[in-house]
């Protein structure tokens, strides 16, 4: 009887991932928990708290008045994302190593096209895994030179982010 009733209880939900606006977290998306047990005489108090990640001091502050997309906000601070920066590109991907839709990632249309090309470059270089079957000649990796890349464009062309550029009068 108890097992039949259990089907109502599942799935277990924790307060976490789905409620955030953007998919960049201060703590992990699963919610690392610490259950604290304190005993004071006859009283025992049991409490749970969600822990912050170790990488919290390295997180960029994203309080922009213009609500720029996360990749545009990086470029506004002079940070250039390359195809070798796998840990950044990994966050925009699915479990099947496909690109997530723009509504979830919060990217603008221009950056979505750019990230998609950077992911393909990283997959051809063997830095990111691929779900597809490879053709015989594709087992050898291809490597790209950043300076010769066509997709790389200058920061001065970003007119809508001029207020965020560092050291520009």
């Amino acid at each position, binding site marked *: 009887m108890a097992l039949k009733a*259990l089907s109502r209880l599942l799935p277990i939900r924790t*307060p976490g991932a789905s409620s955030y606006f953007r998919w960049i977290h201060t703590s992990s998306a699963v919610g690392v928990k610490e259950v604290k047990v304190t005993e004071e005489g*006859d009283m*025992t108090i*049991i409490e749970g708290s969600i822990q912050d990640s170790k990488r919290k001091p390295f997180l960029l502050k994203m309080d922009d008045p213009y609500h720029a997309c996360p990749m545009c906000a990086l470029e506004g601070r002079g940070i250039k994302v390359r195809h070798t920066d796998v840990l950044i590109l990994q966050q925009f991907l699915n479990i099947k190593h496909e690109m997530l839709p723009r509504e979830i990632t919060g990217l603008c249309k221009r950056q979505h096209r750019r990230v998609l090309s950077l992911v393909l470059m990283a997959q051809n270089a063997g830095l990111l895994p691929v779900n597809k079957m490879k053709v015989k000649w594709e087992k050898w990796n291809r490597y790209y030179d950043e300076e010769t890349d066509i997709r790389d464009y200058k920061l001065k062309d970003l007119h809508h982010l001029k207020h965020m550029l560092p050291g520009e009068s």
Partner: protein
Amino acid sequence: MARKLTINKFGKVINPIRHAIAFEGRWGRPPTTKTFIAEQIRKVDLRPVKAVNVRFDPFHPNAQAVREFMFITSFPKIRKTNLKCTFKCDVVNDRSEPSIFIDFENKQKCIFKAGSLNILDILQNYNKVVEPILQKYQEDQPKPFEVKVERKRRR
């Protein structure tokens, strides 16, 4: 591998040693969260418990875990363990943390602040607290009175 070979009466070996591995892996499905909760529910015992008070706000994002705890303790199989135990539920509108207050007959108390706890975390910690109390409770309780019935002697 010291294994005895058993021989049939016709001189044939019944259990020969096979060099190839016949099977490797797990029998059946791996355990899920469903099975872990079911293990904990079987252990739940309300004998040393005097009262259970629950307080939650239905608009709190994690009010589900406390409501599930009420649902489990209302199973008739668990309620039958202690019919004297009282249950009380307060629904509030403070956006306060959902919590469970448990009073034992041993004058001990236990409080769960379930703002970010699962139902599995609550049940696991509940059984940990109750186990030493329940062992002491069983020892102190008097054994059932044995009545010796004298048989009538037949003439």
